[in-house]
């Protein structure tokens, strides 16, 4: 597994599942600021790592924050989260015939890191689902989709 995660607590939980995962888990950085260079760097990192994983026929999971999908934490984090979601759907479309899954997990502030890790493991376990946004929480209910 390739793990790109700057949160020590979440990284530790994901690492515990390392043997179960054979693709990329890319966790959007909570510390991305409002400068365009930071946003571009984060998205470029995701591009390189996703390309590498999918070129090797391995699944991809992007982990974002639910609040960021709704723009609640400012434009920098929002552009990263929604950019990753759109990119995941395109990559899923490109790799569905090959049976390689690309998905997005949206966590909330209170989401247990071990739950994120379990879902990442599950999403890498088989060919499907793909192109999905999995919300781990209920804050999104009644709000904008996708």
């Amino acid at each position, binding site marked *: 597994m390739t793990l790109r995660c700057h949160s020590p607590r979440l990284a530790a939980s994901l690492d515990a599942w390392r043997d179960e995962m054979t693709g990329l888990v890319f966790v959007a950085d909570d510390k991305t600021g409002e400068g365009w260079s930071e946003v571009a760097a984060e998205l470029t990192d995701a591009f390189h790592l996703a390309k590498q994983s999918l070129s090797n026929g391995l699944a991809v999971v992007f982990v974002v924050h639910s609040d960021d999908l*709704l723009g609640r934490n400012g434009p920098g984090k929002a552009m990263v989260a929604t*950019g*990753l979601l759109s990119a995941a759907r395109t990559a899923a*479309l*490109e790799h569905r015939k090959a049976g390689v899954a690309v998905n997005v997990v949206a966590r909330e502030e209170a989401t247990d890191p071990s739950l994120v890790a379990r879902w990442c493991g599950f999403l890498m376990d088989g060919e499907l689902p793909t192109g999905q946004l999995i919300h781990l929480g209920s804050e999104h209910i009644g709000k904008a989709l996708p």
Partner: protein
Amino acid sequence: MTAVVTGAAGGIGRALCRRLGQAGHDVVAVDLSSRLEDAVAMLEREGFAIHLVEADLTTAAGVEAVAGAVRRSGGLQVLVNNAGITRDNRLVNLGEDDFKAVLDVNLGAAYQLTLTLVPMMGRASIINVSSRAYLGNFGQFNYSMSKGGLVGLTRALALQLAPAIRVNAVAPGLIATEMAMGIPDDVRTRMIAAIPADRMGEPEEVAELVAFLANDASSYITGEVIVIGGGRSLSR
């Protein structure tokens, strides 16, 4: 009443300039293409107040050129971030230069220009021209990511700038522009067959939607993404 339109030389851009001109705006038309002069001349002949700014919005100088034009105009009521390019390829074949070029123009330039112009706005409306590809589109990892990023930008700014400034996005599907006409005939025919409306959209239809979002008639709408794609988001 000034309106800034980026990507003004393209098919949708020209329609935007004309429609916002019809609505009574002084239009600042921004593009880096030499085609812009022809487009502006045509609109001026039609009697619209159009100010041409040739600028590369991925540079600080380009953004500043637009800001200067807005300062001279005395205030900004409408900003339409319409500039966009494509460099299509499957992700596994996509090079970094093509990835970055699309991201910088479609998302970075819109963001930088908006940050620069917001302090010049009072009660105003920002419309980001995203794309139906934000829902996912084969061979467009970079384009899809950039247009998806515009959705996040739209939502975040809508929250930050309310109530004075409304921020919305439109997401066009296949529109009859030079870009669409560059698609091979057989491919374009198949694409149209998958559109429930059984045709391409017209640039004027996108412009009409943008004009509505620019107008006080839509004053209760902010932070939304409106897809204008003939039902393509639903069909197989």
